[in-house]
């Protein structure tokens, strides 16, 4: 079977798997960003309790395996009465895992906004919340964007694990194709290329565009 014939025969399944992977990536990214922002801010809170929750969260999700977390969310949580559909369990696990890494990114970026900016906001008598939203975060976003570019590519690749709880993503589809045809090189080769294309020609340009847009806001571009 030529590679073209292979694509002709299994293209549909590969395409549908790719769409699932992209959708998982988008949802998990949104979740990761939201969690990272919340946990990153909580880590900087003067409140010991909030700080503690964020620290525990980050330690657990950064310190243990994504695959184990996925299995926990899908197989163990139902024992405690929380049952998630497998697609949901998939993006929640990936989002929560990468969100923990993102939290440190958020915290680091906030702390690297120059001290003078914090002081100028205080001198204008801003409340701490106003200062964060109006002055610090807009500048922190620009600082953390390159880091997020990396993290989102990590996240895309992390979504491949959801195939193990039978979410029909790209990895799941090519595994199935391989299982029935034993065309391993074609199946997994195609998957490699697709993951690379998404990362290199979708995520990276999107992040570059975002960076330029933010820089324009700073009057730098």
């Amino acid at each position, binding site marked *: 079977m030529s590679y073209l014939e292979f694509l002709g025969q299994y293209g549909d399944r590969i395409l549908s798997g790719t769409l699932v992977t992209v959708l998982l990536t988008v949802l998990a990214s949104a979740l990761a960003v939201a969690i990272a922002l919340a946990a990153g801010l909580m880590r900087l809170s003067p409140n010991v309790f909030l700080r503690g929750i964020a620290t525990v969260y980050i330690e657990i999700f950064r310190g243990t395996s994504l695959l184990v977390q996925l299995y926990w969310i899908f197989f163990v949580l139902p024992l405690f009465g929380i049952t998630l559909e497998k697609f949901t369990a998939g993006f929640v696990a990936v989002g929560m895992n990468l969100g923990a890494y993102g939290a440190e990114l958020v915290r680091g970026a906030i702390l690297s906004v120059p001290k003078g900016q914090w*002081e*100028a906001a*205080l001198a204008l008598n801003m409340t701490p919340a106003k200062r964060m939203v109006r002055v610090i975060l807009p500048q922190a976003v620009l600082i953390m964007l390159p880091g997020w570019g990396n993290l989102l590519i990590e996240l895309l690749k992390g979504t491949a694990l959801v195939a193990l709880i039978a979410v029909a993503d790209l990895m799941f589809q090519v595994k199935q194709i391989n299982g029935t045809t034993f065309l391993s090189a074609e199946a997994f080769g195609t998957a490699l290329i697709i993951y690379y294309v998404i990362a290199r020609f979708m995520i990276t340009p999107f992040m570059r565009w975002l960076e330029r847009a933010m820089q324009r806001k700073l009057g730098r571009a």
Partner: protein
Amino acid sequence: MDAQDLSGFPLRLEGDTVPMVSFRKVTKSYGALVVLDSLDLDIDEGEMVSVIGPSGSGKTTVLRMLMTLETINGGVIYVDGEPLTHMPRGDRLVPADSRHMRRIRAKIGMCFQQFNLFPHMTALENCMEGPVHVLGLPKKEARERSEELLKMVGMAEKRDQHPSRLSGGQQQRVAIARAMAMRPKVMLFDEVTSALDPEVIGEVTNVIRKLVAEHHLTMLMVTHQMGFAKDISDRVCFFYGGRIEEQGPPEQLFANPKRERTQQFLSAVKEAV
């Protein structure tokens, strides 16, 4: 703040001539290093006071404490008769909570050595930020106020530029307009010309001269520009080792310093020029 006996400090300053700013036995230390040692300093309403002295003498700390950028270890600071660092509870003073501090802090504005304009906002947006988001003014009113101030500092034409497109002198003038937009009673200038190229220092000092001439503001300025301090100050304080070594009207302090350290400092500065 260390626990201290505050019984000797009044809950508020009363009388015919309450100073706009009053430091009473204010102490600041970092560990064993005493930066300010029981400082007493009164500044009257409308008075322009310059602070000079060698680096490490505690002069910038005075401004930073007044802006609540630094906590104090002892004593009380009063602004417009009310304690800033403390608040009355019953018949005694306790350390101020953030709400109290915010209320008193509203009377104080500050300009920094490094300007510290918000880089993601234009000159005009920088000036409007406080009035809109802190004072809650309607945008239109804040804009009018800000445009007027930008005109005063000669930056009206650059109002839509971001700070990265402005020179140091221009940024500092916008920063002065931004601080003034909050209508403070007290303005603090922390070495506002130290980061500037020599040829643009004049444009910033001229703006400050204008403020002195046209606004009834109380001002406290840390500076290395001796000539400027001499010109516009009502009083000059020479700091040395965390204390006021000598103070007086500029004519007297510069022409006829009494203390040896003041003489040494002034002749060293003169040689450098």
